[in-house]
Structure formats: structure tokens, C-alpha cells
């Protein structure tokens, strides 16, 4: 296993030390493994808490700051954080206007956040609303299953809900916006290689040199199917087609396209892929209103990418363009 790490069981706490050292504007609670805005709690503002397993950096700790999250809880690699963390985070960001939990739809994340919300409700008067993201079209949706995974749209939910909270909107509105973004977003991912979980020490799956996985998530789970390697242009079609097939993205004010790298893929390839994704969208009559290209939600060292489309309107565009100041996303004043 070739990684820049010390003891595999210290990966998360070691990385949190690095985040603290690199970002004096954030406050890191090392004991509870929480990254806080330096000025949390912000009085009168809805507090945004997210979190999940580690291995997806910059998500979520890198999205803490003005205009986005107030706190992020870091679990072990690919393992949801424990309720104690979300309880401590919720307390730490409660500025009197309630707290929004942004939870990716994985059994573990949902259950741990649920228990945390129950504990917060039992212990204090803080109002908590949870929004669960589930945008991955690679997974068949059904009442009888765990449902779809929360992937790329989570970053967009955090940005847009974060902007709404920063504007001082009330909890229910911020939660509604988060749900709207999730409802209007869809994603699909692919992998050229597996990733290696540090504690496991070897690749999660073996993938021959001439094969790739289509429909992967962000935890090294194998995808829906294995197919021969193909040119970027065909991969773009394989990702865009099921997304467009799941929701109508034509017309309206266009879409925000988020092309995400999974950790081991350099920006050169992401820009190249983006060219082909943009071409595929144009062919289908989908108008690109905004775009984001980079490795924002990674799966350790996995090589591959995901495409997320979000149907936008004036409100969402305004919130997307609103200032944000986090290690991972930063623009505006």
C-alpha cells in the first residue's frame, strides 16, 4: 500500500492535525473529530452540520466556513461518524436559529445522524432538521432497499443551503432549499481503479488493466457493471445518459454541471472529461449555466470521476454564486 500516512489507524486524526495547521481560520475539536468555523456558533444563523466517513476530502471538513458548513464531523475512513460527534457539533453551531443536518443516504450515516438527532432533542431545546441526499442514479431506487446513495449533489446542497443560511433565512426554508437541490440533482460515477482503505492495506477490488467500473459510489464499492476501457468521449456518454434518463434536464434555466474527480485522477483528465461531458449535454439540448470541475468528493486514491447535474433557476443560481470562504470552495467577497 503506497500512501503518505503513518499508522493506518491514525489516518483521520493525523489529517485533522494537518487541517488545523493549514487553516487557522477553522477550529478543530480533535477529541470529537469536528471541524468548526472559527466563529461558530454564529448568533441568529441556522447552523449547518454535515459529516460522514473520512476519505472524501475536501468533503466535508474542507467545506466548513462562511457561506457553507458550520461544522463537519469526521468518521473513520469510509465509516459514518458516531452520534456523540454530531451531538457535539450541533451544540457547537447552535446560534439560536436551529440546526440542519446534511446526511448522505448510507445506512450507517442515516442511523448515526438519526440517533444524534434523537439525543439532541432529548438533551436540549435545539431544533434539528435532517436532509438526506440520494442522487446516485447508478442505484435502483425502491421502497424495499436502502435506496440511492448520496454523492455529488451533497456538495451542491452544502453550498446552496450554506448560502441561504448565511443570508439569515429560517431553518425550514434552508431545509426546503436543501431538499430542492437534492430533488433536482442526479449523479453517476465511474472508476478506472479501486481505492485502498488504509486499514485494509490492499485494493478493495481488482480491476484488470483493460476494464473499468461503471456506477461506482465513493466508498470503493464495486460499481453496477464492469465494462472494457473506453475513450473519454464514450465514458462521458455512459455517465450522462442515465442521468438524463432519470430526470428531464432540458429547458428552463439550464443546469449546473459538477464534474468530480475521485482522488487519483489529475485535473488534466478532468478537464478533458469535462469537454466530452459538455459535448454530450449539448447534443441532448441541455444548457450549461454553471460548472465546477475538480476533486471535491473523493474516494481515497480511486482513479475515476462522477458527473452531477443540477437543474437550476434564478434562486439556486443566486445562492450558488453567493460568496463562500472555505478551504475547498472559495469565491465572492
Amino acid at each position, binding site marked *: 500500500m503506497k500512501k503518505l500516512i503513518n499508522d493506518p489507524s491514525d489516518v483521520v486524526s493525523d489529517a485533522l492535525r494537518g487541517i488545523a495547521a493549514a487553516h487557522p481560520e477553522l477550529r478543530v475539536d480533535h477529541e470529537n473529530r469536528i471541524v468548526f468555523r472559527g466563529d461558530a456558533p454564529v448568533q441568529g444563523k441556522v447552523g449547518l452540520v454535515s459529516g460522514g466517513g473520512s476519505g472524501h476530502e475536501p468533503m466535508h471538513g474542507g467545506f466548513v466556513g462562511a457561506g457553507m458548513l458550520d461544522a463537519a464531523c469526521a468518521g*473513520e475512513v469510509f*465509516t459514518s461518524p458516531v*452520534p456523540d460527534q454530531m451531538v457535539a457539533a450541533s451544540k457547537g453551531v447552535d446560534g439560536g436559529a436551529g440546526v440542519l443536518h446534511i446526511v448522505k443516504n448510507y445506512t450507517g450515516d442515516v442511523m448515526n445522524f438519526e440517533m444524534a438527532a434523537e439525543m439532541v432533542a432529548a438533551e436540549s431545546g435545539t431544533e434539528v432538521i435532517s436532509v438526506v441526499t440520494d442522487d446516485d442514479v447508478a442505484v435502483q431506487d425502491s421502497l424495499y*432497499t436502502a435506496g440511492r446513495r448520496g454523492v455529488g449533489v451533497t456538495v451542491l446542497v452544502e453550498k446552496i443551503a450554506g448560502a441561504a443560511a448565511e443570508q439569515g433565512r429560517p431553518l425550514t426554508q434552508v431545509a426546503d432549499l436543501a431538499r430542492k437541490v437534492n430533488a433536482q440533482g442526479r449523479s453517476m460515477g465511474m472508476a478506472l481503479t479501486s481505492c485502498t482503505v488504509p486499514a485494509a492495506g490492499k485494493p478493495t477490488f481488482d480491476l484488470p488493466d483493460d476494464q473499468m467500473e461503471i456506477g461506482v459510489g465513493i*466508498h470503493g464499492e464495486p460499481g453496477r457493471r464492469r465494462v472494457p476501457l473506453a475513450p473519454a468521449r464514450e465514458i462521458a456518454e455512459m455517465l450522462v445518459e442515465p442521468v438524463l434518463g432519470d430526470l428531464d434536464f432540458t429547458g428552463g434555466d439550464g443546469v449546473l454541471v459538477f464534474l468530480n474527480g475521485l482522488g487519483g485522477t489529475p485535473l488534466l483528465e478532468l478537464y478533458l472529461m469535462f469537454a466530452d461531458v459538455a459535448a454530450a449535454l449539448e447534443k441532448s439540448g441541455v444548457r450549461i449555466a454553471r460548472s465546477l470541475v475538480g476533486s471535491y468528493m473523493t474516494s481515497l486514491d480511486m482513479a475515476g470521476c462522477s458527473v452531477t447535474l443540477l437543474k437550476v433557476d434564478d434562486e439556486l443560481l443566486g445562492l450558488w454564486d453567493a460568496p463562500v470562504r472555505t478551504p475547498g470552495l472559495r469565491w465572492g467577497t
Partner: protein
Amino acid sequence: MAEGLDVTALGAWVREFARLIADHQDELTRLDAAIGDADHGTNMHRGMSAVVAALDGTPPADPAALLKQVGMTLISKVGGASGPLYGTLFLRMAGAAGTGEMDAATYARALRAGLDGVVARGKAEPGDKTMVDALGPACDALDAGVAADESLAEALRRSAAAARQGRDTTVPMLARKGRASYLGERSIGHQDPGATSTALLLDAAVTALAGGDEG
């Protein structure tokens, strides 16, 4: 071994489970790599090490206190799906256990309360390819043993065998809960990691509580 389970016996069970988890950590992670995210062994090992450390630190006074401590420790140390599920299992057992020695019937009721907690938390049904597919049969076997007036040791052996068999039935199942469900058809042919660790939990009971081998 006495027919009644006291706090010492339950402590021995939990420690034996921790030992088996440590022994099978790599296997559990390997199973999870095939249809999940390659951390089930690591998760359970982290949790059970913390459980043992907690037991060493503050030895609980009675069965209910012990089971509660195990559940709370798992919930606050494991995370993922297995943390809340195993945590709930032990917490619910604690609720059904009381402070006195447990006989076979109490133990069977407690384990079923645990199963109900797991189902309430995780909403899995039998056949969804989860730990429920090992735990459910184990509870049924325990009940049957109690109904047949078997000794605790016999009932535990029967339930461990049922759990192992339940674990094996997960192989051909199509997963409908947990991460394995994302794989759809590709989940078929793999043994569920959670069902595998649950079988170890019941095996540990045989070794520690029935005073015998896993038979």
C-alpha cells in the same frame, strides 16, 4: 458451567466475541470488500477493543449494566452501519436482562429483544442479506431449545449452529439493505459480512457460556 448467566459469564462472552473478531478481522474486511466498503472487520475490531477496555476500566455490577455498557461503547466507537446496529442489539438486550442471573429463557427473550431493536433501527427483513439473517434463526433456535427444555449449553449450541447456517444462506441472496444493495445482481454469491460477525457472536456464547467448544 452454571445454568444461570451472571455478569462474569456475560463478560466472558463479550471478551470471547472480541477475541473472535480480532481473529477474523481480515476475513470480515475481505467479505466487506467484495460487496461493501472493506471496513467491517476494522469497525468491529475497533468497537470490541473499546468494549474490552471499558470492561477492564469499570467492571459493571450486573448483566443489565454490562450489556448497556457494551451497547453504549459500540454506539460511540464504531460508527457506520454496524455501530448503531450492534449497539442497539446490546442496549435492547440490557433492557430485557434485569440485574439478576439470566436463565436460558431470559437470555432467549433478551436476544430476541436485541433482534427486534436491530430490525427497528435498520428496517431489514429476513432475506435482505444482512446480520438479521443470522440473528433471526439464532433467536428461533434459542426459543426452540427453551421450549424443548434443553440445557442452556444445548440451546446455545443449537442457536450458534442456526446462526452459522443463516450466515451461509446469505451467499445466494440478492442484497436489499446496506451497501451491498448498491451492487444489485452482483451481490449474489457473496457472504454477508454482518451475518458473519453475528455468527461469531453466537459462537462466542457457546465457548464462553456453554463451557464447550463451538461444535
